């Protein structure tokens, strides 16, 4: 089963085309690592999938249904969840209000229980303004908040940026929990090795096109990374 099926996707900003026809598949319940050097188009791809950038051509299918013409909020309700680069939280709202923000009609207590099961520290901070949390706690909240809608596909954009290593462990462990629950993941990550270790499949994006698809063991030699990531691994 393919959860997210992308074919011939083109996208960009103004006159500049960034993605020149990307084909990518995320199988259901699997984790896919999306790698590439700066400017390869990783963030643009995730934003286009989530509906924040318009797709100019190509198709995006979520569990077989075409979604490329639907607005961002409709895609979120259909089960796509992007955790954006930076801190994906409402800084001026309290933690509780952040968790209360969602499209469906869920019981807030259940939502809070779920968030606290991933990150217990959030329960202690419910009435604190989100912008005053530490960087790590903000990212935890972003992850917890993103899961409120119970998505089937999670797009994670550089969750570990600017965080202490111990916090990174906790965040990435949460991604593993999600996968164990059967969610499909598309992960953009600066720690290439860790992303590859988590992933079932690896895609490498270069200048807006997919240049490599394979299983993690195929990258073990490092030759692929040498070529496209400047030996980042």
């Amino acid at each position, binding site marked *: 089963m*393919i959860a997210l099926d992308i074919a*011939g996707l*083109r996208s*960009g*900003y*103004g*006159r*500049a*085309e960034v993605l*020149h*026809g990307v*084909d990518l*598949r995320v*199988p259901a319940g*699997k984790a896919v690592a999306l790698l590439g050097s700066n400017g390869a188009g990783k963030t643009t791809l995730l934003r286009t999938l*989530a*509906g*924040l*950038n*318009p797709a100019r051509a190509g198709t995006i299918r979520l569990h077989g249904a075409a979604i490329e013409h639907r*607005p*961002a*909020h409709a895609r*979120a*309700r259909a089960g796509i*969840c*992007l955790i*954006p680069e930076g801190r*994906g*939280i*409402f*800084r*001026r*709202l309290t933690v509780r*209000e952040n968790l*209360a*923000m*969602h*499209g*469906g009609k869920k019981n807030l207590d259940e939502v809070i229980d779920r968030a606290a099961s991933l990150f217990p520290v959030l329960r202690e901070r419910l009435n604190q303004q989100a912008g005053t949390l530490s960087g790590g706690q903000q990212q935890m909240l972003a992850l917890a*908040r*993103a899961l*409120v*809608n119970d998505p089937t596909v999670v797009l994670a954009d550089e969750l570990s940026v600017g965080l202490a290593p111990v916090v990174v462990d906790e965040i990435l462990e949460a991604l593993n929990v999600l996968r164990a629950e059967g969610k499909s993941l598309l992960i953009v990550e600066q720690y290439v090795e860790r992303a590859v270790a988590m992933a079932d*499949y690896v895609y490498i994006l270069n*200048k*807006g*096109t*997919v240049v490599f*698809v*394979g*299983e993690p063991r195929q990258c073990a030699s490092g030759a692929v990374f040498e070529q496209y990531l400047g030996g980042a691994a």
Partner: protein
Amino acid sequence: MREYLPFIVIGLATGSVYAIAAMGLTVTYTTSGVFNFAHGAVGMIATFVFYSLRVDAGLPTAPALAVAVLGVGPAVGIVIDRVLLRRLEGATAATYVVVSLGLLVALQGVAIWVYGPATRTMAPIFPHSTFRLPGVNVGWDQVILVAIAAVTGLGLAVFFRFSRLGIQTRAVVDDPGLTELEGLDSKRITTFSWMLGCAFAALAGVLLAPLLGVDAVLLTLLAIQVFGAAVIGRLTSLPLTYGGAMVIGLGQALATKFVTGHQSLAGLPTSLPFIILFAVLVFSPRGFFQEVVRAKGAGSRTGRRAIGRRFPWPVLLGLVAVALAVPARLNGSQLLTATSTLGFVLVFASLSLLIGLSRQVSLCHAVFVVFGATTLAHLRTMGVPYLPALLLAALIMVPVGAVVAIPAIRLSGLFLALATFGFGILAQNLLFLTKFAFGAGSVVRIPRSTVLGIDLAGDKSFYYFVLALVILGVVAVEAVRVTRLGRVLRALADSPTATESLGINPTAARVIVFCIGAFLAAVAGGLLGTLTQVVNTSTFDFFQSLVWVTVLVTTGAATLGGSVLASLLLVTAPTVFTSATFVQLQPVFFGVAAMLLAQSPNGLVGLVPRPDFTALADRSAWRTPSRRLAERSLPSELATPARVGA
């Protein structure tokens, strides 16, 4: 103390109405990032509908009020959000200022067109009986106004704090994109807040109408006084906005009491909100105001080609040729119109330095024009010869331009527009009747005289004199555009931070451009004053500043052609098409056109097509072709289903 009590009661009542309007303004600003200069005009339109239903159609008060506040207000809100703002996503603050100004000018034009300029009176809505508190009589209507404001204010607070939609609205304020990712339609939530905000404007207008009369100009401008309250609330805090409205209401009432018997201060009570507005903007610490900035839409500024970077010899020479040939073919009154058109070319050219070149929306340009004329009149009375007097009057306006530039140094986009807006009304209310301007007679005379041996009394000779000076002025404007100062201003408009990091002092450039603008506008004012020989307080009133901005944006603020077209449309057109409908609908046209063209690079002039080779370049071969990976190399799970197991 006791004699102040009645004024405190009045102040609390009017402050309450201001609070209702100001909270509505703040709600729309924080959720959409668009400061609605037309907030008062929205209330005015709703009030006129209320008048029509209640007085003309004879409906009972309650249903008429419900239709105006719950029907018309929200409906206008929907139109503003869905029709006007949605296509502008990612525009600059200056663009939004122009759009809402266009809306203000258009709505007011429509109201005057439909209902006429006369003030209509209306029976009170609430019981007029009074009761006695120690030392003062209080009207029940005043109690009701205070109660309505308190209840709506509390209601808003509860709504934003506890209700689901309220929290979602605050989330949209924080980050609209993220709200979308959460599965919420941020656009619908923004539309809702516009409905809410405009309903508040409508409510305030309807409540004010029986007190002030139903008058298109008065209601538009009075609700604009609410800007002061909103600025005290930093445009973001509802409780502070509420308090600010009360301070302004009380301050105005007490000032009314205070100035009784001081003729020279008569303008103080009405100016108080603007004094507060201007003072808060100019004296508040840096960083006090955080502009609500929406993420720019993809490519909102790309594909814009260089405009106005070459000296416009063809336009200038063509203009001069036509202008030289024209007098021979015109009769007396047509020649006056032609002269006036020339004068306005200079007005618009000087305005285009601010709006087109440095993207600073200045809403007090008429002040420079007026004081250019009145100062010239005073200097002539003192016996200064004409030409030196004209230049000296303009020079005197230079420091005024520098004063206006103070907010320009510290504030950007919206807040500069607000500060100049406040300054424009302040100057009109406080200074017009002093001896610096028109004096108590509210009129000045500027007789024509002989300059350099040429007698300017004749209309034809005066025409050529104006032509000569306007050409000099226009050349100066175009010179600024193509020289270093112009480049610096353009760069500042694009990115102040980047410009400063190059070692360029942004302050000097901004002050200089305001000074040049003020100087040239004052010259134009002097010339236009000399043309009519009589200038009174209503010749160039404050509202003209707003209209000029919409006209210039409509025709094109970036080039000389735009200034010429602006002058032709504003001054010449009404003398050619003299029907009353045309004249009345002229502001509506400019308002609507400014809304439509606010984001275009150079207005109507910019719509004239020029050869564009960028599309060709887009097709060039360097672009990476789409490359599909060979399916065979894919892990089986990722291959197309048909191939699995094949």
